[in-house]
């Protein structure tokens, strides 16, 4: 495992950095939010990212992607995360797309992956339910085996980009009780299916999600992704993958929040002295710096472990997510505090990072969830 960017990766990093600087400053996200935009992201920019090869970066070449690794995708996510870009990477690439790559049939892959890579199709994973918290095995949505197909009924919440998805991967129970890892199956359901209702949600971080209700939605047998009853492992692997991606996004966000804060305290004077010269603040800044560095190391390690299919990749994902959750909150909490009163106003960007930090923390498990998972994986 090499914990340093290759020259190619450095180049991607620079390209993404220039791109967000010019094309996707935070003001763009803000404008989307304030205009109550229908899609909540920029279709044009998404198309452009696809043309730059970013959307399909991890999709196999045969389906129009670049066939690269998560470590490469992570660089893009970090750059976009630094400016809170709301484009549908998580729904479509890290969750939906990745699940098809890992578990889809050739047919399913051929139908969807090229459209994803081209930036033309949005596909989302509907796994979370009210009360499921971070336990992927808590699934109450049921899929009944009927006449050559399945009838799905249940309600999914916080389905990322659900309001613009062309299709959903719905996690449903085909057997077992509502907390068992056995009996979980995954189905491809088009968003215009009869009995499927999508209601857009408004989140604190203004990222896009929806409640998806299914009442007797019929799908054919070939809608099954992965094995019947045995979807739990596939789901866990995909969520691990997306979690590593989320950590990369968080890294970009926390780094930028910290940068904004440091820039501010260097400028801002109080009692005729730059706020940044107060030693108590300096020591806190040094501690944030350290936490950010450690979060970066952990995240780099986990993306590479996934690419290398290392056996401890799940442990490293938990390491990264636990650290990134705490570090992003630290950097943004301290950011607001160091900005002072103006940090509390909607006008300043630091509050947007605080909201995103919280949303990221509570997605795919918070730090104590992942510490517990680390211990369980370590056998104690």
């Amino acid at each position, binding site marked *: 495992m090499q914990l340093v960017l290759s020259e190619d990766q450095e180049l991607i990093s620079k390209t993404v950095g220039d791109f967000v600087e010019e094309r996707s400053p935070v003001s763009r996200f803000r404008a989307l939010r304030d205009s109550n935009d229908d899609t909540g992201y920029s279709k044009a920019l998404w198309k452009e990212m696809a043309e730059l090869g970013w959307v399909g970066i991890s999709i196999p070449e045969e389906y129009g992607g670049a066939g690269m690794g998560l470590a490469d995708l992570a660089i893009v996510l970090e750059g976009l995360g630094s400016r809170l870009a709301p484009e549908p990477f998580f729904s479509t690439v890290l969750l939906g797309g990745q699940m098809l790559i890992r578990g889809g049939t050739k047919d399913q892959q051929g139908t969807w992956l090229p459209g994803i890579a081209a930036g033309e199709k949005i596909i989302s994973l509907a796994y*979370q339910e*009210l009360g499921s*918290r*971070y336990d992927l095995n808590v699934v109450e949505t049921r899929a009944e085996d009927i006449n050559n197909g399945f009838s799905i009924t249940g309600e999914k*919440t*916080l389905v990322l980009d659900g309001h613009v998805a062309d299709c959903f991967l719905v996690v449903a129970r085909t057997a077992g009780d509502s907390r068992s890892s056995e009996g979980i199956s995954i189905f491809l359901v088009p968003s215009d299916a009869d009995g499927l209702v999508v*209601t*857009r*949600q*408004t*989140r*604190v*971080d*203004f990222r896009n999600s*929806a*409640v998806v209700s299914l009442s007797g939605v019929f799908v054919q047998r070939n809608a099954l992704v992965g094995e019947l009853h045995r979807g739990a492992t596939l789901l866990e692997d995909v969520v691990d993958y997306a979690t590593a991606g989320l950590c990369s996004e968080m890294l970009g966000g926390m780094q930028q929040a910290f940068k904004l804060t440091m820039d501010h305290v260097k400028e*801002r004077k*109080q*009692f005729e002295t730059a706020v940044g010269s*107060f030693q*108590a*603040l300096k020591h806190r800044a040094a501690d944030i710096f350290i936490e950010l560095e450690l979060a970066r190391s952990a995240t780099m390690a986990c993306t590479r472990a996934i690419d290398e299919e290392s056996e401890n990749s799940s442990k490293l994902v938990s390491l990264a997510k636990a650290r990134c959750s705490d570090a992003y909150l630290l950097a943004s*909490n301290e950011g*607001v*505090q160091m900005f*002072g*009163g103006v*940090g*509390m*106003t*909607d*006008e300043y960007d630091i*509050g947007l990072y*605080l*909201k995103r930090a*919280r*949303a990221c923390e*509570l*997605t795919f498990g*918070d730090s*104590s*969830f992942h*510490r*517990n998972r680390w211990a369980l994986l370590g056998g104690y």
Partner: protein
Amino acid sequence: MTELTIFREEIREWLESSAPGALKGIGNNVLEGCWGGRNPIFPHPEQEEWLSLAAEKGLTAPTWPKKYGGAGLSDDEHKVFREEVSRLKLPAPLIGFGLTMIGPTLLRFGTDEQKAQHIPSIVKGRVRWCQGYSEPGAGSDLASLQTRAEVDGNDYIINGTKVWTSYADKSDWIFALVRTDPGAKKQEGITFLLIDMATPGISVSPILLISGSSPFCETYFEDVRVPRKNVVTEENAGWTVAKALLGHERSMIADAFGGAAEGKKAKTLPEMAKSYVYGGGGEVADAVLRDRIVQNEMDTAAFKYTVQRTRDAARAGQQPGAESSLFKVYGTELNQRRYDILMKIAGPQSLGWEGTGFEDEELGRTREWLRSRGNSIEGGTSEIQRNIIAKRVLGLPD
């Protein structure tokens, strides 16, 4: 029968017979309080009657002198009055910065003319006040203020901007700090001035916070003409007045957090945790979360006893130290930790801003969490409070 007992019986009888029945049992919820003013808002229609009844007897400002419309109660009588009001769970007839801030300040520092002009209208709830201290870019360094007041005959001409003026958009008068001598050293050259918000040249715009809308405003002064007789004490002596008032404000905020430990217990953290992450056998399933809850409960208990200790010591005649700084820094950070835990307890259900998929209670908590981040900034930042403790209590050198 002591005089106090007689007083209690009179008050009780009066409250029982006169206070509007619809208000009994409502309690003292600030959000539902009556702030008075030229265009008063009465969340409950009966509050109008309650205000006028209480004001008539001066009981909106129970301890203020009768001469200016107050009830002239002694401290003991005031205590009895509060006890009787809370016995019936009546809301306060009137709340606001007139009663808590500018009223006491004018009674101490104002001229007879100023008292006569302003105190009765505060007591009657006819004029609502706001405070104009902070300025953009000043932060904790209040004395660096830039709003200019230039003498022009018997008037000042005011130019500048004030921020964090709570309820400026709903207030009739503002008490403000302005710079009258730009050549003087920072804390000198500042004047404490009373300004009618209806004066031409004043405009107000509300401040949107990260938690949503807020009572805070930005208030702009453009060639605003204010009579020089509206100065409290003397020109360039405003810092003294402001400091007295500021100490008062901080101890109010500290008290609020000292009190918050006791009040506002809609649901305890263990109850919340049981509803979101209930395990078996009465225990909260997530042992680490449970431990954080215990820590917060213990912090709250220890803080509550510290507040009590300070009060007991004060009653025993001991001098208070820098308790208000301790209360401020610890109370606010405790509250922040509490909201942090609440967010973790509700987990993904803490992600809502409005609408579908979230309970109103969940949406409210998320906004309150965001709002709580300001607690350690407003009313003297935690940093300033720690500086004060280090200097005044511990005697550490500059």
